[in-house]
């Protein structure tokens, strides 16, 4: 089972798109009328947020596939997608906090629904690996993790809607861009940044999948060559260890 197919092309595409995106951000996109230079953070914060959310939902989709087919490869795909999205979620919280500090003076604002929703989503998915780690039997671990990923994946859009409804009634969006339509240059820059972030996610996802699958296959190769006694026993792990 090769997970690394297309990795080369993808990584080049990601590097190219992100470089072009950064160039556009600093040399092409105009300064925002309200927020000035601060608004540039938008081009790294929002694509990370969108890609992380899609990643969490994708984790849920692979979990559904795993439950239906019992295929452990889908469990691995789900695990890695959630893992990388969690890293991106940390990035969203950090960049969002920096943006809040720069434009509002506080390191945190409750008025920004995206940021608040991400805090809740982060708290939820932070339990994914501890949950996996607390179940020893690998088949059950995969199954329970899949149930969690499905419920959490369905929760993400619901949570966003609820938080947005709660905040928008009392305060206007603090960290949105020029209220109303985004000028063409900004939109192009944003789309390139989004495409670059999405390519980066898929690249890192395949990268980690290939690495994990290599370790797993290596272990089974070792067992065949050295016999069961030549093998160190598997430690408990949150990550899938069988394919």
């Amino acid at each position, binding site marked *: 089972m090769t997970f690394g197919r297309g990795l080369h092309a993808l990584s080049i595409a990601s590097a190219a798109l992100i470089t072009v995106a950064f160039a556009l951000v600093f040399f092409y996109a105009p300064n925002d009328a309200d927020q000035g*230079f*601060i608004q*540039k*953070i938008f081009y790294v914060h929002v694509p990370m947020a969108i890609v992380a959310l899609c990643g969490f939902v994708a984790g849920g989709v692979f979990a559904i596939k795993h439950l239906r087919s019992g295929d452990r490869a889908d469990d691995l795909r789900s695990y890695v997608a959630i893992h*990388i999205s969690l890293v991106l979620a940390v990035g969203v919280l950090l*960049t969002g906090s920096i943006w809040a500090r720069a434009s509002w003076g506080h390191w945190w604002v409750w008025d920004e629904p995206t940021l608040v929703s991400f805090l809740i989503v982060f708290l939820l998915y932070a339990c994914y690996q501890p949950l996996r780690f607390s179940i020893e039997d690998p088949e059950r671990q995969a199954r329970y993790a899949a149930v969690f990923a499905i419920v959490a994946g369905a929760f993400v859009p619901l949570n966003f809607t609820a938080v947005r409804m709660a905040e928008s009634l009392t305060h206007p969006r603090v960290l949105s861009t020029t209220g109303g339509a985004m000028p063409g240059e900004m939109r192009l820059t944003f789309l390139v940044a989004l495409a670059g972030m999405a390519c980066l996610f898929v690249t890192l996802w395949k*990268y980690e999948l290939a*690495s994990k699958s290599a370790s797993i296959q290596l272990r089974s190769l070792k067992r065949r060559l050295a016999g069961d006694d030549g093998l160190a026993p598997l430690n408990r792990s949150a990550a899938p260890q069988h394919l």
Partner: protein
Amino acid sequence: MPALPLDDAGPYVAAAYLVFLALILIYVSIMATKLGRIEREIGELSELVERRSERSGERDQERV
């Protein structure tokens, strides 16, 4: 809500982009460690295969 002038805003924007970069680089370095371990294990395995083919080579020689 007034926008900060460029000199004050620069560090914040730079910090945000640096967070992004740092996350990627930390991830890559963790993956690099894993790759190193995989390489080491492959080395051990090929050694195992070497030894085994040597042993069967000696056995063939003894029979002859």
